[in-house]
């Protein structure tokens, strides 16, 4: 296990290094500059050099690269080109709250609703309950999140006027984005739970549990759900990916000041340092989550052994 962990961490560091390097050189290749070209050309040569020096753009490329890497190790990602006087780490930290809240609520809602729907569908197999749950599941996977978010905003926000549109003021502002974000989680979890439950319900130990006179609730709760939900880990990866992707577009649609909208905005204004910082942040979050998921396999279900752990 320790050996496995060691190699995984090494692997993660290599991946992050590659991303950091690739991002750095890509940014240097980019057309367009974060500065206002017209105003820049009105400056004298000396002033312009001073300006470049402030952002370290006057040094040769390899020096910039080394400086960038050493700063990165210290956790400094430089100042944002666009949001004046803010360093990127601070910028990300100040924006992470809303995103974390949305992500957390979406996971919570998605898992609760998804599991309940899945269980109902499995117990009422081949009834209207089952079919409508599967319809929700297919729609949830198929309907693009931005389409769902836009329709939600139109019908609930504009037509019915129930919830605030595109403002981030009170808690109620987070309801619609959470719904939009959780749709795919609900769909994936409901479908998964249903299929696993159908399998578990046919097992002999379910018959045993009923035969020894356990109540329906105990049978479901203690025997069925627990065994059905172990393999849910296998779809955590896709769920995390869809939440990350979803955050980019849903935060934009609902005007949430989170890191997803920060990412899209910084791309639009060529804010290089922020893009680099967020790319690394997203990547690091992604690889670490994948590591945690892989480690959870062994902990939750001893029958699953991580490959490489046996040696």
């Amino acid at each position: 296990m320790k050996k496995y962990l060691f190699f995984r961490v090494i692997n993660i560091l290599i991946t992050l290094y590659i991303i950091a390097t690739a991002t750095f050189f890509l940014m240097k290749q980019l057309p367009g500059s974060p500065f206002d070209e017209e105003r820049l050309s009105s400056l004298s040569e000396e002033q312009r050099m001073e300006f470049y020096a402030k952002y370290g753009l006057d040094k040769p490329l390899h020096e910039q690269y080394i400086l960038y890497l050493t700063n990165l190790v210290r956790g400094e990602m430089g100042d944002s080109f666009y949001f004046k006087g803010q360093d990127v780490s601070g910028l990300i930290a100040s924006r992470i709250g809303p995103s974390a809240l949305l992500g957390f609520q979406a996971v919570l809602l998605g898992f609760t609703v998804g599991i309940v729907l899945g269980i109902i569908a499995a117990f009422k197999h081949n009834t209207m309950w089952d079919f409508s749950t599967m319809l929700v599941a297919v729609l949830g996977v198929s309907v693009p999140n931005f389409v769902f978010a836009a329709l939600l905003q139109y019908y609930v926000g504009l037509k019915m006027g129930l919830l605030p549109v595109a403002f981030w003021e009170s808690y109620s502002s987070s309801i619609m984005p959470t719904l939009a974000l959780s749709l795919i989680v609900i769909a994936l979890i409901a479908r998964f739970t249903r299929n696993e439950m159908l399998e578990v319900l046919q097992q002999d130990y379910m018959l045993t549990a009923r035969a020894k006179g356990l109540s329906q609730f105990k049978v479901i709760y203690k025997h069925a759900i627990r065994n059905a939900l172990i393999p849910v880990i296998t779809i955590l990866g896709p769920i995390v990916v869809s939440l990350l992707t979803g955050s980019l577009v849903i935060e934009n649609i609902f005007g949430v000041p989170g890191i997803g909208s920060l990412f899209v905005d910084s791309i639009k204004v060529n804010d290089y340092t922020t893009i680099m910082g967020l790319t690394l942040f997203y990547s690091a979050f992604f690889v670490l989550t994948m590591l945690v998921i892989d480690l959870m396999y062994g902990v939750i279900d001893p029958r699953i052994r991580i490959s490489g752990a046996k040696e």
Partner: protein
Amino acid sequence: MKNAEPLLNDEELSDDLFEIVGRRAEDSEKINRPPLSAFKDSWMRLKKNKGAVISLIVLTVILLLAIFGPYMNGYKYYETDYSAAYQPPGAEHWLGTDKFGRDQWTRVWEGTRISLYIAVLAAFLDLLIGVTYGAISAMLGGKVDNAMQRVIEILVGIPNLIIIILLIMLMKPGIFTITIAMVITGWVNMARLVRAQIFKLKEQEFVLAARSLGSGNKRLILHHLIPNVMGLIVINMMFTIPSAIFTEAFLSFIGLGLQEPLASLGVLINDGFKGMRNHFYLLLYPAIVIVGIMVSFNILADGLRDALDPKMRK
């Protein structure tokens, strides 16, 4: 009944009373129905799945409209007419016009073409790069496999979206850039699946038999292993397609994909979203088309999985 008197005794039952009919080999071995290939077998199972058949019909209709739709009225997708901006759907403009007076019907089907192009591209890359990469990696094994797997590990370690976004920033946003981005990221899943499956298959006896009859690696892969992985390949391809369509629409929606005046469903939905307060129809129709495409592909993929691999049926 043992003591019952026989009707005829042995002498009377002489051999010449009998005629040898014989077993006519051609009759008893005759195949009364046309042979059922694996493909036909799956097709029959797929036809029984109502959802899959409906999806197939919907996709065919969408495909036909994407091919002929833009020619069905006289407008071009880039043709502006400021005097006719924001016309609601009607006889002149079937789905209305946008803020520049461009015909929405033409633009929707023009955008659908992009989505279908992406679908074909995704399937093609899956087959060309994914299957080849996975098959070679598994067949050669050893050091080659190890090196090839390292490359895949790195690609898997980086979120796809990050690769795509970085690439789009480097090059001009557009269909070409999205194509390149998909060339880099789109085939990885397929390569992993095919590799794992071939690893399992290549220890089996039919491979040994083929080998002892003198098949080389190429023949083994093309004639013995790939046909055995075909079901898996088709299923995975069918799931790659909707996710590729989604990725393009998503990028276009946040402004990193196709740019005006080109129309993609993502661009149209973004436009419609901006003006939905007063001109909801601009959002509605492209949204219906993309949902139609996505739902159909997903249901069809499910149906195909059941048809091709009945073991996985639930």
